[in-house]
């Protein structure tokens, strides 16, 4: 075969596949959102945004992302630096810490349900310690704060691993000489972290944050398992429109709103953490 054509032949299946199942659905979803069967309309967006649940689910989604992502960033940075100086047991510890990476968001929600439900382990523990007389129902409309905390903990538990893996891989790429030089010039561990690790880690931080923030706006199954309708989020509303209300146009409109938010945040993160040309390792 002509060697100049070979690479194109090899990438053709992926390109076709992604055009058909990634780019084309975007056109379709936009079509669905902006039409009512006869022509162009903004009715779907008007319907969706004027619904009383919309501002609440928008607020909830943002609040959750705002609470979860910074914690995960700090936690994964801490874990990555701890692993980096580990001599014995590194593989075992890393395996344990990355276990949640393979766990579905639905399973994570169910796991934390085991802790927070009325006859669950948190109540059993507090009862066992004599802190409470009878089990309280944490996941009810009377305690919205607890519902939020439960969902937040489940999200931190589940999705910190994905950032950890990216950051550990990134730290592994930083040349050891930089740290040795830092030590020679008397930099403390904290200074080495601030002046060497963080700046050199920029590309990995960028990827980790983009992935994580997009996942945060997609939050769905964890919320369904723990809060159900108590804590409406955007993705849950999409599902609701599609299934319970059988309104595909409205579902598409919310989908487009989530897409817009995701793209906006991706651009912001890419811009804020951009790597100067020629500064890669």
């Amino acid at each position, binding site marked *: 075969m002509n060697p100049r054509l*070979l*690479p194109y032949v090899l*990438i053709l*299946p*992926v*390109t076709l*596949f*992604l055009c058909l199942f*990634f780019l084309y*659905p*975007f056109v*379709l*979803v936009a079509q*669905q959102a902006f039409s009512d069967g006869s022509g162009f309309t903004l009715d779907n967006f008007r319907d969706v945004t004027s619904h009383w649940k919309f501002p609440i689910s928008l607020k909830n989604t943002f609040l959750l992302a705002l609470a979860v992502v910074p914690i995960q960033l700090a936690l994964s940075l801490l874990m990555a630096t*701890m692993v980096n100086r*580990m001599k014995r047991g590194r593989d075992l*510890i*890393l*395996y*344990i*810490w*990355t*276990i*949640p*990476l*393979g*766990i*579905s968001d*639905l*399973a994570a929600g*169910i*796991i934390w349900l*085991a*802790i927070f439900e*009325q*006859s*669950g*382990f948190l*109540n*059993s523990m507090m*009862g066992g310690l004599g802190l409470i007389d009878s089990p309280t129902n944490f996941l009810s409309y009377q305690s919205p704060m607890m519902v939020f905390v439960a969902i937040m903990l489940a999200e931190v538990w589940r999705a910190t691993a994905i950032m950890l*893996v990216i950051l*550990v*891989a*990134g730290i*592994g790429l930083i040349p050891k000489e930089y740290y040795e030089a830092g030590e020679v010039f008397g930099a403390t561990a904290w200074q080495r972290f601030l002046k060497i690790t963080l700046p050199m880690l920029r590309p*990995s931080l960028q990827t980790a944050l*983009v992935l994580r923030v997009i996942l945060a706006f*997609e939050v*769905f*199954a964890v919320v369904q*398992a723990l809060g159900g309708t108590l804590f409406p989020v955007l993705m849950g509303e*999409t599902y609701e429109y599609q*299934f319970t209300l059988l309104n*595909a146009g409205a579902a598409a409109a919310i*989908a487009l709103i989530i897409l817009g938010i*995701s*793209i906006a945040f*991706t651009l912001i993160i890419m811009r804020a953490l951009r790597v100067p040309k020629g500064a*890669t390792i």
Partner: protein
Amino acid sequence: MTAETTDVAEVGANTRKAGQYVYIAAVVLLCAWVIVPLYFLLINTLSSPEAVNSYPKPFIPEFDLGSLTFFANFAGILTALKNSILVAALTMVMSIAIGAPAGYALSRFEFRGKELFRLLILLTRAFPLPLLALPLAVMFIRVGIDDTIFGLALVHTTLAIPFAVLITFSLFSGIPIELEEAAWTLGCNRLTAFQKVILPLVLPGITASAIFAFVISWNEVFAAAVLTIENRTLTAFLLQNLDTSPLHLKFAGGFILVVPALIFIFAVRKYLFAMWGIANR
């Protein structure tokens, strides 16, 4: 004077020792943070339905298979389990079969449009892909593959393909092209050289990325719930019955979701960091 310096040295040693203890305590604590919730799920799974719904909870499993038997006998759940496995297996095969050639092309050839192609792959990361299930649901009805295992596997393949391409790209890049060239001089053509020299070397890595694709599909909730009605996967089944199913069914289901993930992450742990480290450049 001498006393003073030994004092200082002693204080230094003490703080270092204290720091060591804090470090070890933090590692143990973070391991517990990951493992304890999983342990709670295990207790619930290995307890009788009565124990699961009772209060206070035991902190040691009673090794009763009541909940798991209930799970296995629940109408439709074994079919859902079978569907989950089939969709994940199909996803695994399709994403590697379509993705690996592109990974090879990216690592071995310089061609026009290479950057554009990489951009297309990376672009998929900046979008909440499960949302694309909404327009695809309509498209699938038109084509006649709505509510089928194959249709859902197509969407899951879209999720897995970017990873398959980037991981295989990094695997092939790790093998010196000289090996291939040597095989050509010894009478192999491109295809036989690939079969006899490259394939054996990358096979373990390809297996790892195939397992990764399997887990992505196994864990996916939203698209599965949107695209399947009669042929639901396990995640879709559990999600749609969250309001009505008893606690012991949820926990047993969550456990069944978690187990393969644990095994898979263990199986690919060697590749996890190499895969992510290079795949994210």
